[in-house]
């Protein structure tokens, strides 16, 4: 067994030092009834080559996104990640280190987390950010819980433009924590009147932009209404690249900004691991969940970084903690930071513009297809199509023609009567040929 360095001779010597005869004797404290008498019915160990063969066969049974014209978004986006990002995060010292509890020998992780926090704060237009959450959906749920703590109210008002899975995550935790969450009906056109629903009982309003259907939202009016009633505005995004081109939520009055960072530096990974972004105002730092890296000095007065404000955390505050989070998304946050460092403002702005340009080009082509309507007035790199017939069937037909066409809204909102809606995304990775293939497949499948 190649991962186990001890030889039988080693084991024997060690057992003699301990003073027992067999390794099994070390389990003397376990009640005999709980110890297995026979080996479990599981395969025996395999060589590296054999394991590789199993996985390459499994891998081949999937259609990799890069192999086909690909237009799926809805909360996870395919972008090109430079090879140097993946190389750097595979450096042993990043990949195989633990949470930086000993700052003197963890400055690499701590400084990159400090850079990550600064980048996220700049992108979102907020004062401070934490050192990552699991993903955008759990970050959104944590934002709602934080708003409850800050306002001492327990009712969240959730826009119908929020990603339906995010709304479900918020609802699940709310219901089980015995808080209240009101989710508005799906807001396909981005014209719901959420302001009218805000009152003195609402702790926070959760609004996404670009929203689930692709519409861009000006949050200013909602923020003003929230603040008038003592509520907080939680702004959500699922496509971090959009922040390169759009007015950041912080500039529109958001109090907490959360979102998914997958699309910068991280692969699609069939849904995870991803990286949650979480930013807020200075005043709220002590109620912010999760880990924070802060600047300090060492005994020689040199600038150093350290995990800080841990008195908010579960290992100190136990049942009074701001969250139960222990492990976060350190390595995915690192990938985000390295990719964003490579892009810089110049690269990110251009990348965002290219994404928008490709989406506009696709929308213009689709607007000419009979029986297809683009519903959005505004969008970034994703928009909603109304098609004739059932969008889920259409997607399957197009998949059979080798085009992964988008996400039928009914997959996420099965009971909303939106069976004719299709979400379509187009990043910098889709080409003119891909768009042409999309239109051809669509016309042949309607």
């Amino acid at each position, binding site marked *: *067994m190649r991962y*186990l360095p001890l030889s039988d001779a080693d084991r024997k010597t*060690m057992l003699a*030092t301990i003073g027992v005869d067999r390794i099994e004797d070390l389990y003397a*404290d376990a009640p005999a009834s709980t110890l*297995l008498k026979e080996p*479990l019915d599981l395969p*025996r*160990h*395999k060589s590296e080559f*054999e394991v590789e063969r199993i996985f390459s066969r499994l891998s081949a049974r999937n259609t990799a*996104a890069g192999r086909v014209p690909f237009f799926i978004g809805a909360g996870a986006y395919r972008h090109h990640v430079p090879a140097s990002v993946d190389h750097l995060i595979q450096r042993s010292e990043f990949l195989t*280190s*633990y*949470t*930086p*509890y000993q*700052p*003197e*020998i963890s400055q690499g*992780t701590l400084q990159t*987390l400090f*850079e990550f926090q600064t980048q996220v704060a*700049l992108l979102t237009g907020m004062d401070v950010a934490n050192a990552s959450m*699991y*993903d955008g*959906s*759990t970050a959104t749920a944590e934002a709602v819980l934080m708003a409850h703590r800050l306002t001492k109210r327990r009712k969240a008002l959730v826009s119908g433009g929020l990603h339906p*899975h*995010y709304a479900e*995550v918020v609802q699940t935790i709310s219901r089980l924590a015995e808080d209240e969450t009101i989710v508005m009906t799906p807001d396909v056109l981005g014209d719901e009147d959420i302001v009218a629903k805000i009152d003195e009982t609402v702790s926070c309003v959760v609004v996404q*932009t670009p929203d689930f259907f692709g519409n*861009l939202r000006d949050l200013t009016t909602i923020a003003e209404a929230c603040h008038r009633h003592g509520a907080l505005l939680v702004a959500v995004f699922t496509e971090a690249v959009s922040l390169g*081109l759009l007015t*950041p939520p912080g500039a529109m009055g958001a109090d907490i900004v959360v979102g*998914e960072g997958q699309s910068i530096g991280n692969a*699609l990974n*069939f849904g*995870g691991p991803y990286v949650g972004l979480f930013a807020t105002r200075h005043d709220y*730092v002590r109620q912010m969940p999760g880990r924070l890296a802060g*600047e300090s*000095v060492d005994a*020689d007065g040199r600038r150093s970084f350290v995990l800080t404000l841990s008195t908010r955390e*579960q290992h100190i505050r*136990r*049942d009074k903690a701001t*969250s139960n*989070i222990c*492990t*976060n998304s350190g*390595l995915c946050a690192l990938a985000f930071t390295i990719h964003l460092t490579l*892009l*810089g*403002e*110049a690269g990110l702005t*251009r*990348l965002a513009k290219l994404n928008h340009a490709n989406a506009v080009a696709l929308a213009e082509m689709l607007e000419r297809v009979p029986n297809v309507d683009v519903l*959005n*007035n*505004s969008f970034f790199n994703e928009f909603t199509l109304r098609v004739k017939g059932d969008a889920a069937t259409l997607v399957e037909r197009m998949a059979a023609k080798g085009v992964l066409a988008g996400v039928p809204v009914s997959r996420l909102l099965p009971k909303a009567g939106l069976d004719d809606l299709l979400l379509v995304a187009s990043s910098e990775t889709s080409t003119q040929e891909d768009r042409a293939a999309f239109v051809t497949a669509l016309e042949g499948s309607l």
Partner: protein
Amino acid sequence: MLDRPAHIDDETPETFTGNRALDHEEPLLFEIGRTDATGVDVEEPPQFAARLGGLERKDRIGLPGLSEPEAMRHYVRLSRKNYSIDAGLYPLGSCTMKHNPRANEKLARLEGFADLHPLQPMSSVQGALELMETLAHWLLTLTNMQAIALSPKAGAHGELCGMMAIKSAVAARGEGATRNVVLIPQSAHGTNPATAALLGFSVRVVPGADDGTVRAAAVQEALGPDVAALMLTNPNTCGLFEREIVEIAEAVHEAGAYFYCDGANFNAIAGVARPGDFGVDAMHINLHKTFSTPHGGGGPGAGPVVLSERLAPFAPVPFLRRNGETLALVEHAEGTQSFGRMTAFHGQMGMFVRALAYLLAHGGDGVAQASKDAVLSANYVRASLRDVMTQPFGDRLCMHEVLFDDAWLKGTGVSTLDFAKAMIDEGYHPMTIYFPLVAHGAMLIEPTESESKASLDLFIATLRDLAKRAKEGDAKRFTQAPRFAPRRRVDETLAARKPVLRWCAESPSL
């Protein structure tokens, strides 16, 4: 002649740059980057009419960039300021820092897994679903449990999942209003009480016995009709097997409550004993610990939860369903007793690949051997240090980690923290300190199964030498430590009192 770089002040010793040969001082990205620099060739977009509804950015972001060679150097230099398991023994108790095979990294990056969108048509992801099914089979077999939720994204997220299932089951019995207490031993991980509180439970602490374990009688005493669950770690955080685990589980069930087992220490018993056999109703499995997916400086983890038959109906969506040859994901809770959804997609696929690769490489035989070797290594460290260090609950067999306290340091002027920092100078990452809280000045050592005997022997000899020096009155070696790390002792109080959580152009440093 060039000026000294701005980040080097007059206090910096000897060299012009502040560097010491291979040990480079590395400024922040914000001090060396430029907003017009980029390390990625992004095509210039064509002329087109934007459709941004007037919401385009008006102000600059202020994000610096670096060219590719500059970025490479910046992050390589930073990486060298980190300790890692690939560089040395990482004896963090309860954290399980074991070898991370690179084969797993290679497999997780196969395009059929890494380049797969969570919302692709099910017909295009059958291999991925089969992988999830196979992993589920392994985990259910190793635990003898009935159902599994793969979606939780970390151990603490798994705890939340298990406790959500329990809360839902209690509610389904019509006892939601009355069963609102969770029993948690003093020695528990901090995540346990935080998780219970997050769901609105109040926490009742179960005292530990003098031997570091929990007595069935103590649990019995704390139980009542208001108790929804017990959260217990086994083996526990003192490194001990809970001897009365079966009686404890029976008492909990008899009182109408559920038994949540914190699976953080499953690596001591995987392949040797099955939690289902000692009456567990729900347990999370830290794939990153037990099945060795890299910790990545604090994540990502993955925390699948196994459930007993009683809790199985309440498992979160999505879950797998097989129809003959094809697999599908059930993505909606309607029409089921599922408590709902706890994350946007299906969980940590990247970690599933790594964990399954690790399991297949070990096989059922290797998993059992790994657990036994982990326990052997911990007991070897215990037996080799018991004459110089003290154990809070006496010298007895431990599981995969061994707990010492600071009684033996009394009168030396050396604290547990000082001792830990002195280990850094010897080239080791310190053990877990000040946890569990039930031991005074705790030092929790977990060597894991991936250390060779030579590596363990040097570690033991080093600790013996440090112990001797501490007892001989060489306190300065400890209170001044670390001397040779990239940083001397960092002022954590200052960081908390005056938090600086981001770089600002106006106040570049303290």
